[in-house]
C-alpha cells in the first residue's frame, strides 16, 4: 500500500495570494503526523485541498492512493474535523452523534456501542442528553472530535482539534491517536502549538505554503544542527573552563554559569572526568528553535 497522502508541486492561489506554493508532502500510513505552522501558513487550505474542497492550480495530489479528483469515492474512509467544529447546537450530544453515524449508514447497535466508547474517550459520557449548545468551548471541541471519529475512518484530518482542551484531556487524545495509528490508521493534525508537535511521530513544518522541514521531532532537531547543552556551576570558573577548552569543548560563560555544547550525551562522562562541578543541568534543544533555524535557512 502506498502512502496515505502524497502531494507533489501542489499550488493553490486565492487571487494574488499563493497559499500553497509548490508544496510537496508524503504521509505514510499508520502514523500520527503533525502539520505545524504559524497562523496563515496554509494548513487549513492544505487540508481542504486534500478532501477535494478546493480546485488546485497545479500539482499532483493522491489521498489513500486515490487521485484527489476522485476523492469523493472514498469519503466514507475519511474523517474531517473542520476548524469550525461543525455541530448542531440545538441537538443533544446523543442526537449529534446519531446524525453523523446515520450519514455513514452505521447500524443502530454498532452506533450505540461507538457512541458509548467515544463519549467515554472525550469524557462527556454524563452529558449525553445535554444540548450541544450548552457545552463549553472545550467540550464542544471534544464532541466534534467524537462525531468525526464515529465511522472509524482510515484517514483522520483534524484541523486544530485541541484548541481549548485542557492538558490532561489532550494527553488522552494523543494516546487515542497513537492507538489509532498503531491500528494502521493515519492521523493528520494541524496545530500552531509546538508542544503538541513533540508528541507526533512525524512533524512537518509549514511556512508560507511550503513544507520547510519534515521528520520525527528528534530528526528535526538534528537537521537544524541543534545540540544539547550542559550547564555547569564551577568553583574555579576561569581555570575549569580553560581546561575544558584545551580538551576541545566549546564553552560560553553567561552570568557565572558555563554552558557547554555536547555532540552527544555520552560526552557528559568525559566532561566529568575533567572537572567536578558544584551543580549541573542538561538542556535539551527546543523543537521551536529547530524550526526557527530551519525555516530561516529555507
Amino acid at each position, binding site marked *: 500500500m502506498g502512502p496515505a497522502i502524497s502531494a507533489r508541486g501542489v499550488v493553490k492561489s486565492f487571487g494574488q495570494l499563493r497559499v500553497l506554493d509548490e508544496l510537496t508532502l508524503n504521509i505514510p500510513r499508520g502514523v500520527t503526523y503533525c502539520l505545524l505552522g504559524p497562523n496563515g501558513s496554509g494548513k487549513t487550505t492544505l487540508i481542504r485541498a486534500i*478532501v477535494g474542497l*478546493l480546485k488546485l492550480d497545479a500539482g499532483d495530489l493522491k489521498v489513500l492512493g486515490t487521485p484527489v479528483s476522485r476523492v469523493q469515492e472514498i*469519503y466514507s474512509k*475519511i474523517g474531517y474535523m473542520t476548524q469550525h467544529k*461543525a*455541530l448542531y447546537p440545538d441537538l443533544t450530544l446523543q*442526537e449529534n452523534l446519531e446524525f453523523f453515524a*446515520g*450519514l455513514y449508514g452505521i447500524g443502530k447497535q454498532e452506533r450505540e456501542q461507538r457512541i458509548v466508547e467515544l463519549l467515554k474517550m472525550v469524557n462527556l459520557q454524563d452529558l449525553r442528553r445535554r444540548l450541544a449548545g450548552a457545552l463549553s468551548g472545550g467540550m464542544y471541541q471534544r464532541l466534534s472530535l467524537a462525531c468525526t471519529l464515529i465511522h472509524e475512518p482510515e484517514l483522520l484530518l483534524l484541523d486544530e482539534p485541541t484548541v481549548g482542551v485542557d492538558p490532561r484531556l489532550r494527553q488522552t487524545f494523543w494516546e487515542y491517536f497513537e492507538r489509532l495509528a498503531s491500528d494502521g490508521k493515519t492521523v493528520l493534525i494541524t496545530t500552531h502549538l509546538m508542544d503538541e508537535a513533540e508528541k507526533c511521530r512525524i512533524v512537518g513544518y509549514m511556512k508560507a505554503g511550503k513544507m520547510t522541514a519534515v521528520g520525527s521531532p528528534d530528526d528535526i532537531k538534528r537537521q537544524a544542527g541543534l545540540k544539547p547543552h550542559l550547564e555547569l556551576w564551577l568553583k574555579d570558573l576561569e581555570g575549569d573552563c580553560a581546561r575544558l577548552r584545551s580538551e576541545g569543548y566549546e564553552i560560553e560563560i553567561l552570568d557565572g554559569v558555563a554552558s557547554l555544547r555536547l555532540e552527544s550525551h555520552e560526552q557528559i562522562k568525559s566532561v566529568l572526568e575533567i572537572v567536578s562541578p558544584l551543580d549541573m543541568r542538561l538542556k535539551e534543544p527546543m523543537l521551536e528553535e529547530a524550526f526557527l533555524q530551519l525555516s530561516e535557512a529555507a
Partner: protein
Amino acid sequence: MIQVSLSRIGVVALRVVRQLKRDRRTIGLIAFAPIVLMVLFGYALSGEMSGVALGLVDEGGHPALRSHLEGIEDFGILRLGSESDAELLISQGRLNGAVVLQPEEVRVLLDASSLQISQAILAAAQSGAQEEAASLQKPGVVITRYLFGYDLEMMDTVGPAILGLVVFFFTFINAAISFIRERSQGTLEKFMVSPLSRVEIVLGYVLGFSLFTLLQSTTTLLVVTFGFKVPMRGNPLTALAVVLLLGAGALVLGSFLSNFARSEFQVVQFIPLIITPQIVLCGVWWPMQSIPEFIRPISYMLPLTYAGDALREVMLKGSSLTEILFPDLLALTVFFLVFFAAATLMLKRQMY
C-alpha cells in the same frame, strides 16, 4: 454522478424535525400565526364586501326595470355583452349574480353558493318587474337560474390563500435560516466530505419540513373550516397535497436564496422582496383582473397565485386533483423543480 439513498434522506429529515420540534417559538408560530392572520385579514377586509356585484346584460325592452336596478344603492352594476360572460364571471366568483334583459323575458342568474345575496338580487329583480308590469299593463316573466359560483364571504376567498401564505412564509424563512446556519456552523463543509450528496441534503430538508407543513396545514384547515365556516367541498387531502407542493417550493427557494445572504438578519431582509409581492399580486385580495396588465406576468410567476387558486378550487368548488392539474399543480411543480435544481447547484458552488 448523483446518488440518492433514502436512508440518508431520512437521517437528514429526522434531524430537521428534531431541531424544529425543540424550537418552541417556531412551534407557536406554526400553530397560532395562521389564526392571528385570519382574524386580522378576515375582519379588516370584511367591510369591502358590503356591495353586491351585479352583471347586467341589456338586450332591450325593459328600461324601467333597468333603472330600478341601477337605482339600488347596494348594487354595483357591471354592464356585460352576453349572458355567457355573466355566467363565467359568476362561476369565477367575481359577480354575485346577473340580470339578462330581453324583450320577451327577464332571466336572473344567481350564485347558488351565496343564498342571502341571491335572495336580495332576486327580490330586487322581482319587485322591479312587478312595477314595470303594473305600468305596462302586461305580466312580467322572470326566470331564475342558479349557477354554481363562489360564496363571496370574504373569509372564503381569503382563508385558503392565508393557508398558502402562512405555509410559504414559514417554510421559506426557516429553510433560508437553516441553510445559512449549515454554512456558518461548518456542517455543510462536513457534509461535502461525507457520503451525503447535495440532492439528499435538499430532499431531506423537503421531507422534514413537509411534516411540519402537514401539521400546520391541518391546524389551519381546521380553524378555517370550523372556526371561520369556510366550506370544504373537495377532499381535504387534495388541499394538503397542494400545500405540500407549495411548501416544497418555498423550501428550495429559501435554500437557493440563502446563498445571497450572509446572516440570518439578512434573510429577514428578503421578506419585502419575496413575500410582499406574493401577497399583493396573488389575486386574493384584489382579483387578477384589477392588477395592471404590465404587472400581471409577475403574478403568473408567483407560486402563491397558483396555490391560492388551487385551494379555492378544491375548498369552494370541490375540484379534484385532476381538475387542478392544469395550470395550478403543473405551475407549482415547475417552480419546485427549477429552484430544486438551483438550490442543489448552489450547494456545489461552495467548493471553489
